[in-house]
């Protein structure tokens, strides 16, 4: 029989997280700090609105781009939160931020186009670029820069084939953010080299100290920026699979074709629920943000006491401590921690080569759960130091 598989797909690396997941699932009594989604339930009023929409029989497709009412609310929200000005025709409602990333790549890339990706990063960026025919060019962010992207790093890798820069701040897995001052040189660079910026801002509601700034809000940046965002993290709605892409209409018009042919439209129930989230859930969002911040402080402090080096993350719900001093790879460390103390923490190497030597610790857990896990981690480390 002949080989039915696509060479490109076969050559894709399976996600490093998947590998780790398979090991953890064999261990039912392990406690986990490995989850990349909120521990909060979706606010009840949002769930209730979803139920109501089902009762009312709103079970049909919406328009391809998504409910007009929802797209309008997204515009209002983006403007009031991040001073991004879009109209409803510049928004496509997607099946999670993940689809947004995929259709963005398919819409803008020609074969051989290079996309600069700042790593460590979420696992899907590189495969999406590759599958769209593009070539990912990785820039390794450094801990001494607090895992922020620097203009000099872009200068080192830019070629005449470079088409776009991909950034995602607040960042999964490092918890790093980019302030207005940090983003300005990146925006300048993009303009000078005539590049597109693709900015995954799914954690935009979760910053601690300073408010999130979107590079798309900078002067003359709207026409060269695509913003991907969604409901998963801000409103604790991961399972609803709802996100959106905002960009200049020349691009969005073409992107709509891709979305239309592969997805048709995002889930209707989720879209109705999302309108409720955008309109009435500021308090719930703030409450979750406050709780994450308290846990963040708790973890940073605990790691300091344990002697685990880490820079202070200012966004998302991750801390990225260094385990380099133990002389193990992060995968070895994570595997031994799991076997010896039954705590699951994702090795940093799952998020790119430069994540080697780090762990991604999620604090989407209650203080009580964090306490228990930290106790075990501490025992493990003390054992190593002996």
């Amino acid at each position, binding site marked *: 029989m002949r080989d039915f598989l696509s060479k490109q797909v076969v050559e894709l690396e399976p996600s490093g997280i998947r590998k780790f997941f398979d090991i953890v699932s064999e261990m039912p009594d392990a406690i986990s700090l490995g*989850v990349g989604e909120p521990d909060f339930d979706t606010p009840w009023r949002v769930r209730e609105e979803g139920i109501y929409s089902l009762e009312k029989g709103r079970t049909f497709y919406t328009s391809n781009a998504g409910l007009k009412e929802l797209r309008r609310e997204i515009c209002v929200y983006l403007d009031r939160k991040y001073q991004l000005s879009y109209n409803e025709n510049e928004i496509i409602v997607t099946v999670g931020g993940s689809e947004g990333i995929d259709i963005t790549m398919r819409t803008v890339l020609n074969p051989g186009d290079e996309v600069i990706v700042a790593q460590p990063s979420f696992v899907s960026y590189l495969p999406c670029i590759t599958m769209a025919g593009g070539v990912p060019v990785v820039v390794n962010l450094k801990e001494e820069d607090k895992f922020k992207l620097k203009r000099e790093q872009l200068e080192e890798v830019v070629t005449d084939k470079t088409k776009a820069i991909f950034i995602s701040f607040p960042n999964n897995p490092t918890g790093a953010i980019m302030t207005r001052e940090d983003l300005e040189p990146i925006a300048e660079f993009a303009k000078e080299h005539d590049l597109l910026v693709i900015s995954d801002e799914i954690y935009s509601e979760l910053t601690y100290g300073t408010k999130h700034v979107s590079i798309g809000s900078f002067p003359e940046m709207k026409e060269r920026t695509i913003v991907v965002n969604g409901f998963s993290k801000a409103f604790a709605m991961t399972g609803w699979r709802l996100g959106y892409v905002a960009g200049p209409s020349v691009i969005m018009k073409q992107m709509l074709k891709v979305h239309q042919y592969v997805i048709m439209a995002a889930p209707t129930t989720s879209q109705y629920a999302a309108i409720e989230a955008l309109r009435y859930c500021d308090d719930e969002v703030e409450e979750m943000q406050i709780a994450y911040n308290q846990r963040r402080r708790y973890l940073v402090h605990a790691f300091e006491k344990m002697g685990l080096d880490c820079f202070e993350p200012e966004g998302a719900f991750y801390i990225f401590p260094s385990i380099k001093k133990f002389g193990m790879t992060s995968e070895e460390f994570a595997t031994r921690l799991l076997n010896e103390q039954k705590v699951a923490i994702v090795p940093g190497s799952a998020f790119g080569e430069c994540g080697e030597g780090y762990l991604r610790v999620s604090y989407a857990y209650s203080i009580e759960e964090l306490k228990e896990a930290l106790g075990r981690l501490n025992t493990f480390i003390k054992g190593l130091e002996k």
Partner: protein
Amino acid sequence: MNMELRESILKLIEKNSRLDLKDLAIMLDISEADVANEIADMEKEHVICGYHTLIDWEKTSKDQLTAMIEVKVTPQRGQGFDMIAERIYNFPEVKAVYLMSGGYDFMVMLEGKTMKEISLFTSSKLAPLESVVSTVTHFVLKKYKDHGTILEAKKVDKRQVVTP
């Protein structure tokens, strides 16, 4: 007095009064001494009135019944409702007394072992009070949620153990 700090402390210990001072200090990014002082002050000022435990007595072998009693009264000249409330809330069986707007004046929460015990209390202590005009007793059949907490089942983490 830092109202914002007070509120943050209260919000945290309202949900979990067993958080220790050290953890509170870290979570709120202030010194342990500051937390301790603020809490001590609030205890003195009776902003913090006690530290209780939320118990679902249904799951124990203890017989316990809660009743809510609507009480209509005639306010006394010069004393208003407060004096009558005091007469009522001093009974240890009474767990809560609220002054209400609307069709009646007080909502009185009572706890007792049996229906008989509670009716006896109402007829022998509450109803005969001089200013009480009438009482209507409602028995609680099931408590679903109390103090913002759903009693039925403990929340279990249904997330996958590791996700990107």
